[in-house]
């Protein structure tokens, strides 16, 4: 099957600082090679600063790679940016492009004109998209009077305005309430299912989103792709491992548990409301769980419960990187 998006050994280095002494060099992408097939909904999963947005910006022609090459539908994003721009669109979560003084419908019409969509077709498209994202009732409302969730939904609608062949979604549900996020996810999935020639590259740090939506997921960490496969295949990687979830009272620095023999990786979250912590530990062997229990008790932690949940993509990330996404 033809590749819709392809990167070959793409690296991107950022330099900041004006003098040689103050120059800071950050390698945002390090030798990234991925291939996304036509009709695929591909997820890029990684923590903040992993390089997801940098890769999307390169593919959207906003940024040049320091080395390597990237192609969208066979067009080089550096040498043939003009062609690439005709067939793509991008939605960045948390951004609300548009003009506050214009209405929601006017804003979408404005963006439709940047793609040369003609009069009645543009108006019909705007109406359909507003209906899709649940903003029909707000079409005549000025954008500066919308809630941030509504603005984000309008932003998502903008991304579909030109019915792009390849759509880049950079954390599209960031800041959305649960229902809106679910609605948007459903629309994205449907859009690809109904039009098999479309391709979506979605970046997220929400595990469930990647798991629910994506045909394949690439896990990116510190600018490198550390794994790339179907969500089920990725989760199978940790099936021969054991995932334990410890709920403990209070909070603490559990990093030292990594020193326990047989610990592949761990992450923890402190819940302020209940003043409890959830530790997720990926172990090489079930027997190691008792060593973890002992280590926790030895440090004065009170264990409230221990469970062995089904592996998730977060467990895959912990298994690969040694720590959680947050």
């Amino acid at each position, binding site marked *: 099957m033809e590749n819709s998006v392809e990167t070959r050994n793409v690296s991107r280095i950022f330099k900041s600082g004006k003098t040689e002494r103050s120059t800071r060099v950050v390698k945002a992408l390090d030798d990234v090679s991925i291939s996304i097939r036509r009709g695929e909904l591909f997820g890029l999963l990684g923590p903040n600063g992993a390089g997801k947005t940098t890769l999307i910006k390169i593919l*959207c*022609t*906003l940024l040049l790679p320091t080395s390597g090459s990237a192609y969208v539908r066979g067009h080089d994003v550096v040498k043939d940016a003009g062609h690439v*721009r005709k067939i793509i669109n991008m939605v960045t979560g948390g951004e609300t492009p548009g003009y506050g003084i214009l209405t929601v419908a*006017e804003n979408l019409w404005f963006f439709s004109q940047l793609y040369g969509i*003609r009069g009645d*077709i543009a108006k019909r498209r705007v109406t359909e998209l507003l209906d899709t994202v649940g903003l029909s009732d707000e079409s005549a409302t*000025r954008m500066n009077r919308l809630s941030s969730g509504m603005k984000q939904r309008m932003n998502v609608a903008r991304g579909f305005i*030109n019915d792009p062949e390849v759509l880049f979604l950079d954390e599209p549900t960031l800041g959305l309430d649960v229902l809106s996020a679910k609605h948007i996810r459903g629309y994205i999935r449907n859009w690809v299912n109904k039009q098999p020639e479309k391709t979506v590259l979605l970046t997220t740090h929400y595990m469930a989103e990647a798991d629910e939506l994506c045909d394949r997921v690439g896990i990116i960490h510190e600018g490198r792709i550390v794994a790339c496969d179907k969500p089920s295949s990725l989760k199978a990687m940790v099936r021969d491992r054991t995932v334990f979830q410890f709920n403990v009272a209070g909070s603490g620095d559990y990093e030292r548990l990594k020193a326990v023999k047989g610990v592949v990786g761990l992450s923890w979250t402190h819940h302020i409301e209940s003043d409890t912590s959830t530790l997720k530990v990926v172990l090489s062997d079930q027997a190691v769980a008792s060593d973890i229990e002992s280590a926790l008790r030895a440090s004065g932690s009170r264990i409230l419960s221990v469970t062995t949940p089904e592996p998730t993509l977060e467990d895959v990330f912990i298994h690969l990187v040694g720590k959680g996404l947050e």
Partner: protein
Amino acid sequence: MKPIAYSGDLERNLRTIIARTYVRIVGSGREPSWLLWDTVLPMLTLSAYVYVYRVMNAPREFTGFVIVGGAMIAFWLNVLWNMAAQLYWEKETGNLEPFLIAPISRMAMLMGMAIGGIFNTTLRALGIFAVGVFVFQVEFLVADPLAALLVFVLTLAALYSLGMVFASVFLMYGREAWHTSHLLQEPIYFLSGFYFPVKFLPFWLQVAASIIPVTFGLDAIRQILILGAGLSEVSLHVGVLVIFWLVLLFMAKWMLRYMEDHGRSEGRLTLRWQ
């Protein structure tokens, strides 16, 4: 949804120009109070100059010079604060990324901003002009209205092309360029002779002023509207304005391209508050 029929490059760019113009004009129309303040407040400064000239017993046409200059200042301010800073503001509000990934000429986007800006500022300038004429009873001696229109259009074309050049500089240098605007505002009021004819300036200052397109435009418009000159008497001005327009337009296109390539390479196109 039905498949979309896309237009060609030329139509797409024309649609972009119209859409961006629409934003400017409709946006201003929804908050019309600016027109009142932007007309009334500049009249205070203009009045001060008119009264100074009257106290000095300056020739009567000086009142007309001041009013015409005051109306043209509106365009200079629009270029300096709106046109030049527009791409910078588009970046700050998150609009720049969607613009840059769209298959459009950046010049089309700037052209739309310019046309919208010209429309709004013309209303403002007409307001200043009308109030000035009514209050100070300025007399005009227009022998060749078409020449006046030609010079006016060429002046705006050159001035807004300069604004397009500024826009690309602002895009890359953000707040640093912002300070430069402050630096440029008053010296250009002075050098372009907004409140007096530049022929009264020392020769070397006149030479310095000649690099500013509005200096020529303003002088020619004054000659036509107030001193009754015809096209032949301002032909040099027209020639210089055409050269300014073409050179600045070419520079704007080149600089936009350069700044975009530089921004893509440095990663500065989408960085905020730099």
